[in-house]
Every structure is written in C-alpha cells, then in structure tokens.
C-alpha cells in the first residue's frame, strides 16, 4: 500500500514573530524539510525612490533614516556621500570624524540588535535581546544628545553634519567606551560557546565564497563566507583611512560565522571609536556650498535646496548589514532625477532559497536571523 502524501505549504509571515517585520517566506515542506522557498516582499514598500524624485536633495535625507531604521546614521552617511561625490564637495575634517564616530556607534547598536535577535531566533526567549538593549539604549542616548532624535536621526547634511556635538557629549562617550568592553566580554562568554547556539547554527545555511560573490551578498554575510572585503578598508570614506582596525572573517560560511563576525566587529568598532575620539580635530562641521547652486535667500551652510551639476554618482559605504549604496542621477534640477538605493538587506536575501532548501523550518528561521534583514530596507 502506498500512502498518499503531498507537500505542505507554510507561510512564515507576514505576521510572524521571526520575520523581523512584514516579510513573508512561503515554505514548501516535506515533513519538516524544506523543498522549496519563495520570498514575498513589498508589504512595507513605500516607493521611496519615486517620492525622492519630488523632493530636494536635503529633503531626501529623512528618507534615508527610514530605509534601515536600525542604522539610520549609516543610511544618512551613504546618501550624503553619494551627493557629495556628485557635487565634488570636500567635507571638513571634524565633520568627517563626527560621521565616523556616529557610524561606528550605530554599528555597535545595530550589531547588538542583530546578535540579540539571532539568539532569539535560535529560541533564547528574549534574554539576549534585552541584554543587548542595555548598550543600545546608551548609544541612543548619545545620539539624542547629538541630534535630538533616537531612531530616525537625520543628523548628516550634505557638506557635513547638522550640528556640532554638545560639550557634555565627549565625557559621556568616554564613559560608555569604558563600560562596553566589560559587556562585550560578557556576551562572548555567554554566547560564543553556548552549546545550543552552536548546535543550531554551525553547518546551517552554508554559503561558499564563490556562491557568496556570485550572489552579490555583502557585509557580515560575505565576510562570513571567508571573503575579506570591507568597504571601510577597501575604499575608505569619512575618516576610516586614519583609523586602524581589522576585518573579521569566518572560515566556514555558516550562520555561526556570521554571528561571530558581528561579535568581533563590536570590538573592532570600539577600537576605532577609541582612536577617533582621541584624534578628533576642532573646526567647522559644515562645508559652505557654492552660492551659485544654492536656492536664493537660504543659508549656504546646509541649505534646503541647491542644484548639483548634471551627472551621476554612486556612493557606497559599509553599513552594518553590508554594502549600502546610493545611486543618484542629477539632471541639474533641485531634485534627483533618479534616486536608487542599493540596499544590502534586499540583495543579501537573494541566496536565501539556496540556503534554505534541504534544511528544516527551524533552520530557515535561524538563517533568516543570520542574514539580519531590516524590512524597511528590503522593501524601501
């Protein structure tokens, strides 16, 4: 007698605790084994690329906060770098350092979340997330001191940053830097050798370096597959060329590697922050734009509207999730002719099907957690 059986289709999402927002994964199962996976996205599609064509370059900065809302600073930074490339603006030294410091603080905050959520996806019921929130909270406090916002920061401006940090900021930052190594040691103790996390993540979702490069993945995922590639080193922007740091790479390309890379990058960010805070020069934090391009009657410092020359630029940075690029086409008008976001969350999802097929439902959740997507950035 043959038993009639048919594949079992399960929708993981769009409302599901582990899809980090409104991402939907349609899994076809044979028992618990995945035989097909389909990604369905667009639940958070806000058409930012179209909206940006209706706004001036400065007005578009808040959009960049809202793509990757867990790393708004790096979103800002990538965009202003793209526009500065387009307009050939030299940014003052102090602003460069401020940008670097903010981006690294943001990386610590974002990686903390990613590590906590990853452990949560492995089934650790909220505890790692809550512990990680403790540090993230303090970093958000620093952001609040610097720019008045905590999540959607809108701090960077074309030609510099929106304002200088207040006097109390530096002591506070130094205090935080003294605290963090202890915390990181604690997380490494708790998580790195946790038997269950190792059992759940080692050998799961393996990407070889050839696959990783072919699938255009970037950031911790690319480095997890053993490719030593970091835009901060390869194509230094802001003040990264003046800082010393190491790239963390994995050797097996599995979920555990992506996770240990994020843990190692916390330490590297801290090391960079220590250097950057010591090296911080004084001086202006904005570059005056040429008055001819600026809207008449407005400030030439961080103006509301200006006209970049005709042309195009692709500015990219290493965001916590990978290569974040902004492709801006200008036709000489006050708003971009084309505004494209190369979002790492979105492109890192390309090999998800490859990684998920053959594993189990529980693995698929861990793999998704190790990719570390932000749905705001996937859908834009």
């Amino acid at each position, binding site marked *: 007698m043959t038993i009639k059986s048919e594949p*079992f*289709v*399960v*929708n993981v999402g769009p409302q599901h605790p*582990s899809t980090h927002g409104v991402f939907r994964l349609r899994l076809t*199962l044979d028992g*618990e084994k995945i035989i097909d996976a389909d990604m369905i996205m667009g639940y958070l599609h806000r058409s930012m690329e179209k909206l940006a064509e209706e706004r001036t370059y400065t007005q578009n900065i808040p959009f960049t906060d809202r793509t990757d809302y867990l790393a708004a600073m790096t979103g800002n930074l990538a965009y202003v770098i793209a526009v500065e490339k387009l307009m050939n603006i030299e940014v003052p030294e102090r602003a460069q350092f401020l940008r670097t410091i903010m981006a690294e603080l943001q990386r610590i905050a974002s990686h903390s979340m990613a590590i906590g959520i990853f*452990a*949560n996806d*492995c*089934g*650790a*019921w*909220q*505890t790692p997330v*809550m*512990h990680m*929130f*403790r540090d993230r909270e303090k970093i958000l406090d620093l952001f609040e001191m610097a720019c008045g916002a905590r999540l959607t920061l809108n701090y960077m401006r074309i030609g510099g940053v929106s304002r200088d940090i207040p006097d109390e900021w530096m002591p506070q930052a130094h205090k935080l830097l003294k605290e963090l190594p202890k915390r990181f040691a604690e997380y*490494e103790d708790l998580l*790195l*050798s*946790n*038997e*269950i*996390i*190792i*059992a*759940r993540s*080692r*050998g799961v979702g*393996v990407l*070889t*370096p050839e696959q990783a490069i072919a699938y255009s993945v970037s950031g911790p995922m690319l480095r997890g*597959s*053993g*490719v*030593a*590639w*970091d835009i901060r*080193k*390869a194509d230094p922007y802001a003040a990264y060329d003046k800082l010393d740091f*190491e*790239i*963390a*790479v*994995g*050797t*097996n*390309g*599995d979920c555990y590697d992506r996770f*240990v890379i994020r*843990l*190692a990058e916390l330490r*590297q960010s801290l090391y960079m922050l220590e250097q950057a805070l010591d090296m911080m020069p004084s001086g202006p934090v904005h570059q005056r734009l040429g008055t001819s391009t600026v809207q008449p009657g407005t400030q030439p410092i961080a103006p509301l509207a200006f006209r970049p020359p005709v042309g195009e630029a692709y500015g990219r940075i290493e965001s916590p999730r990978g290569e974040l690029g902004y492709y801006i086409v200008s036709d000489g008008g006050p708003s971009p002719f084309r505004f494209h976001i190369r979002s790492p969350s979105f492109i890192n999802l390309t090999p998800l099907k490859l990684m998920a097929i053959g594993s*189990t*439902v*529980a*693995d698929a*959740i861990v793999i998704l957690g190790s990719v570390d997507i932000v749905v705001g950035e996937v859908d834009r």
Partner: protein
Amino acid sequence: MAIILSGEWYDLRDLANPIRELIDALGAPDAVDYVLWSLIAALAILIWLVVSVIAFIWIERRLVALMQNRKGPNRVGPAGLLQPIADAIKLLLKEAITTRDADRILFWLAPIIVFIPTIVVFAVVPFGESMVLADLNVGVLFLIAVAGIMTPAVFIAGWSSNNKYALLAAMRAIAMLISYELIQVLALLAAVLFIGSMNLQAFVSWQDEYNTWLIFILPLPVVAYVIAGAVEINRSPMDLSEAESELAAGYHTEYGGIKFGFFYQAEYMAGFAIAATVTTLFLGGWTLWGLEEWIPGWIIFLGKLYAVFFLYIWSRGTLPRLRIDQLMAFAWKFMLPLMLVNALVIAVEVVVWEETGASRNVALPAIGAVNATLAVILVIGWARVLGHGSGLQRGYRATLTREIGKIYYTGAEVS
C-alpha cells in the same frame, strides 16, 4: 486552622472536619459523607493549584524580568501583584473564538482534556505525613499513566485548529512526548527498583528512614527526569511544540480567551506536577531531616516543589531552543542507552546489597558514590562516543585580518 498547621492528619479529607458534625446532624448516610469529604479535599488541592499558578505567573514574570534586565509587571496593584488577576479577567471576558475551519467539538475538548491530568496527578502526591487524597500503592504507575493523557490532548488541540503551524507543532509534540515519556519511565523505573515500592508515601518514608534523599543515590535518573519533564511541560529549551520564534504559538496558535487560559494554566499545573513528583520521589517529599517535627510537612513540601519549579523558570530565561532532530537524537541516542545501563546497574546494586546484607551506613554511601561516578563516566564517555565536542560542536572566534580581497574560507568543518 489548628489542624492544618499541626500536621495531625488522617488524610486530606480531614479538611472536611469542620462540617462533619453538620453533616452528621442532618443524618445523611455514610456514602454521602464519604463523597462529600473527598470532594472537599479535591477542592482544596484545586484551590491551592489555582492560587499557586496565579502567584507563579507573577513570580515567573518578575524573575525572568530580573534575568533580562527589565522590571516586569509593576503597574497593577502593589509591585504588579494583581497583574495575573487582571490577565485572568481579561482572558475570561474575551470572546471565545472558534475558527471557521476548526473541528468544533475537538477544538473545545482539547483545553479541557489537557487540564484534567494536570490536576488528577495531585491525587496521589503526599503533601504531608497523611495529607494525601488517594494513597495508591501503584502511585508511580498512576503518575505516568495520567501524565500520558497530555500527549493526545496536545495533538487534538493542534489538529483540530486546522492551522498549519498548530499541526506542525502537534506532530512535533507527539514525537517528543512519546520519546521522552520513555526516558521518564526509565528514570522512575530506576527509583522504583531501588525503593521496591510504587507507593509515593513509601518513597518518602524510605528517604526519611534512611535519612538521605534519593537524588544523592540516583543522580542520573533525577537529571533525566527533570529534562524529560521539561519536554512534557513544554519548557525552554524543549518548548518545540510552542516554539514562539518558529511556529507563532505552536499547538495553541488558534486558541484565544479562556481556552488559551486553560492551556496556559495547564502548563503551569503540569510543571507543578513534575516538580511535585521530583520532590516526592527524589528530594524527600515533606521530610527535611527531622525538621518536619517543627514545621508542617506541607510547607516543606511546597518549598521544595517551588524550588524545583524555579529550575524551569531559570532555564526558560537563559537557554535557546534545540531543533527537533537534535532533541530526538538526544532522547534516543543519548538518554535511552544511558538510562537502560543505569537501570541495569541499579538492579545489580539492589541484589548485591541484599545478598551481602551490608549495613546502611556502608551500603548507601557506596552505592551513591558508584552511581555518581558512573553517571559522570557514562555521560562524558557516551558523549565522546557520539562525537560530541569535535568539529561542528566547537565554538570559535572570528579570524581577524588587515588584508582585503583574500579568501579565508576552509569549509573543512562543514560536511
């Protein structure tokens, strides 16, 4: 009140003493007395259970909050003490939704079925010297049999919901519960072999008489029973049939309102049942090395029970979840052989003790030492044999480099 504290009980039915005269005055036949007193005793257990559950909902949330660097419920009443009551009222007032495609009868039946065994278990548990509702001489068998009802109940809940998450969870639950029931039975078998009785009071009096706890003599079965218990009550790291991060809420995804409340309560009650079993069988029950002369036995018993239950709260706050195949492999490849060897060794020990007739002061420490050593050797040795601690089971740190463009992938450890 005096009798509750004194511990001078015939059995739990003594709770009916205050109204006994009233009933006698009415001239009711003895059968009515008998039923009524039993009902009162059962009601007492039920009230204790419900109060404990309500208290522990608050305690667990506060404890886990403490582990997670947050405050926990602290708004309703002093220090949030009334939070569980507010939750209960909310659950009672909510609309009891039955989804359209659900099997209506089974959907309603499941929360009730899941509720029953968790209460019935306490009929044989001795709360004090004679505080037991039914002093069965096959108490251990009864425990196992009644706990087995949980398995179909969980499956009924998952299947009747007609929800894919629930069905997956239900299938996981069946596989898990059946595997771990075996471990549970083998763990209890070892204890029963050693004591030579299935009566729970006999266990307590044995431990009282020999002035030791069974946990010191049989460490491996205790650990196995606690782990298997965690599976049975769906506690992290074995909460696969709820698996919040994978399957939404597992088998009770579609349940809301008071039906969900039943599952929620049953989970705690089952936890208390496991803790009560561990306390009675392995931790000396209501005795505490003579202290039961001064403190009522039931206070000692409850203290131990809550301490064991705290283990489950602790593991929930700290451990990630295993995958289903890992959990099953743990049961069949690791625990089952260990428990079989353990049962054999204990049988031999019992026979040797009887044959040699050694005094208890020699025999018990010797057996305890042998069993503890054996447990360590078996666990470490068998883990080595299964290949634990090599290759894919080792943690490491990321490699650090300053060179860009180089590839460090070895993939040696990924099969």
